[in-house]
């Protein structure tokens, strides 16, 4: 976490840390946007606690919110890398759908747990590879390449299922979604989400891979001149996003006990929204895993509070839009005062 010798470079460049009051210095290190997002989350928890104290402030509800956040959360971690590099991946939802139906076809179910997990991951990585090759070496704009992937992966998923829901019969997989499998009260899905988040954070903040990602997103030409293989880096990033989709598809199979061509509907928008709210720049060059995960939690908590208070979908959608705007405005305000 900490760098013993000197404070992080960007803070040191602006103002010497010693001249700031202690809390400002801490704020500077933790990242203001992340803090303001934590504030939004705290406010939501407060609202939930006031409106539905018994149902909201309940261990089961915490488990529920985190479980529902896991699938889209894993996707968002991958998306954060792609957006940080200045790209976009519109195909994540379609890849989740394709991976989930391929992994739950009758043939795959014969190979049991390992077969399903392996297939989901391989399909995810495979789609990521195609995206990466088209963008990095084919020179296609990420928006177009992944839009094409969105269309064809959804089409393929529909073709494989013929519109049917493929119900999972493998016992070990179904068990993972149930209460008996919770580890110290934590659902296995949430554990996977946590591991992916930690690895994602380390990868982005503590490795050469992460620094290259930021550099490519900040200024691809400068990154190239600095000796970074920009193309290869981009390829790896879409592979990473595809891998995350494969993992998410597996989690979704555990959660819903089935594969369906409609899985992952609108994940691309949710993941992009969560990353942007979290403070990742859509133009690239700046990304934060912590922010993205908080963004996902904000969304899931909102949905949870709405459902607990029995709000109807029209009200939910209006309120969700308003909260997105509010969250971003609050961030702007906090960011500009520092």
């Amino acid at each position, binding site marked *: 976490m900490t760098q013993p010798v000197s404070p992080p470079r960007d803070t040191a460049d602006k103002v010497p840390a010693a001249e700031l009051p202690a809390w400002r210095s801490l704020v500077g290190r933790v990242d203001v946007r992340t803090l303001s997002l934590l504030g939004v989350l705290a406010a939501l928890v407060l609202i939930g606690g006031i409106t*539905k104290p*018994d*149902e909201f402030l*309940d261990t*089961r*509800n915490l488990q*529920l919110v985190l*479980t*529902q956040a896991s699938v889209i959360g894993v996707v968002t971690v991958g998306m954060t890398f792609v957006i940080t590099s200045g790209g976009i991946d519109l195909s994540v*939802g379609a890849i989740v759908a394709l991976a989930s139906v391929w992994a739950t076809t009758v043939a795959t179910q014969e190979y049991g747990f390992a077969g399903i997990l392996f297939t989901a991951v391989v399909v995810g990585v495979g789609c990521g590879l195609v995206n990466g090759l088209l963008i990095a070496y084919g020179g296609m704009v990420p928006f177009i390449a992944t839009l094409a992937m*969105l*269309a064809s992966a*959804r*089409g393929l998923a*529909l073709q494989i*299922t*013929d*519109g*049917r*829901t*493929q*119900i999972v019969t493998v016992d070990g997989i179904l068990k993972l*979604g*149930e*209460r008996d499998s919770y580890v110290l009260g934590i659902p296995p899905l949430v554990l996977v989400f946590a591991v992916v988040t930690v690895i994602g954070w380390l990868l982005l903040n503590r490795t050469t891979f992460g620094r290259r990602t930021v550099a490519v997103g900040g200024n691809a030409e400068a990154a190239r001149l600095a000796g970074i293989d920009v193309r290869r880096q981009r390829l790896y990033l879409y592979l990473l996003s595809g891998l995350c989709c494969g993992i998410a598809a597996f989690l*979704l199979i555990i*959660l*819903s*006990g*089935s594969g*369906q*061509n*409609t*899985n*992952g*509907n*609108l994940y691309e928008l949710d993941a992009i929204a969560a990353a942007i709210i979290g403070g990742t720049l859509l133009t690239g060059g700046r990304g934060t895993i912590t922010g993205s995960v908080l963004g996902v939690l904000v969304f899931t908590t909102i*949905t*949870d509070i709405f*459902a*607990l*208070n*029995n709000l*109807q*979908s*029209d009200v939910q959608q209006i309120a969700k839009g308003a909260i997105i705007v509010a969250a971003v405005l609050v961030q702007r305000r906090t960011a500009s005062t520092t």
Partner: protein
Amino acid sequence: MSPHTSRRGLLFGTAAVSAGAFLAGCTSNEVKDDKPAANDQPAAGDKPGKHVTIGFAGPQADHGWLNAINDNAESRAKKYSDVTLEITEGSNDTAAQIGQIETLINKKVDVLVVLPADGKALTQVGLKAMRAGIPVVNLDRVFNTPQAYRCWIGGDNYGMGLNAGHYIGEKLKGKANARVIELAGLDNLELTKQRTQGFDDALKNYPNIKKVARQAADFTVESGQAKMAQLLQAQPEFDALWNHDDDQGVGALRAIQQAGRDDFLMVGGAGALSAFQAIKQDNSVLKATVLYPPTMAASAIDLARALGQGKGVGGLAEYEIPASITLYSAVVDKDNVDRYMPTGFR
């Protein structure tokens, strides 16, 4: 496919998964409570008559119920030696579907059977066919004006809600302060509102019952799981649940199982094979489902053939086929599930 079209594709989304080969063997079950013997009898008499070419245009079968619609139409047409079926590639794109129907008009088919992706948007092409002298059998999603079709046959969404409500009402009759919840379908569809309206109207007959919560899902397994998980958290105690759609019901049942709840009765909707099997096994909260039968497509072929041959419908006194037929949304529970099992779609 964009998320938008995919949602539209779920219009009328009734449950999952279709059953090509399985259904092909055993379609044609007219779902009528009072005429069990008539089940395998085509509506217009079986004697071969004048040859009829029927053009069939439907939406993209990206959902189990729509797949079952196509299967029902195709297999029923095969039963008749005097019928040729010209079936178009299903599409949810209004312009594409209009083009396909115009092609069928130009081919001068004798009768058209149309299940429009969007009834309002396709009204004009229905009118065009009628003016060209080709009678149209409008299947399920209704055109804007009766001038655009000779006969309408479809399901009863209001009746689904009504019958689900009455079934639950009778089950909870003796219970004071009974609480029910509703897991609805896609809220921006008219049919979802009709189903809810029917449900609410039925519950008015039972003053001891109160509907305490309603959440809308998207007709998908994923949304069914997510919304149900939250409903269960929001309502620690209730007595009955009506879920509009057996496909999202797969997800809802999964959420119920994950929450370890079994203290209520669940009624589904549509008539998926998986729901029938669960009802028969009687080892989950799912005790019944309300039908929205895909057999209507087979009946539409019967009607189209009768139209082409200028006949009425067998068993009715009319010389012509009726102007409209609404299918009955029967409640299937453990007592009668065996009878409906062959119509279940995957």
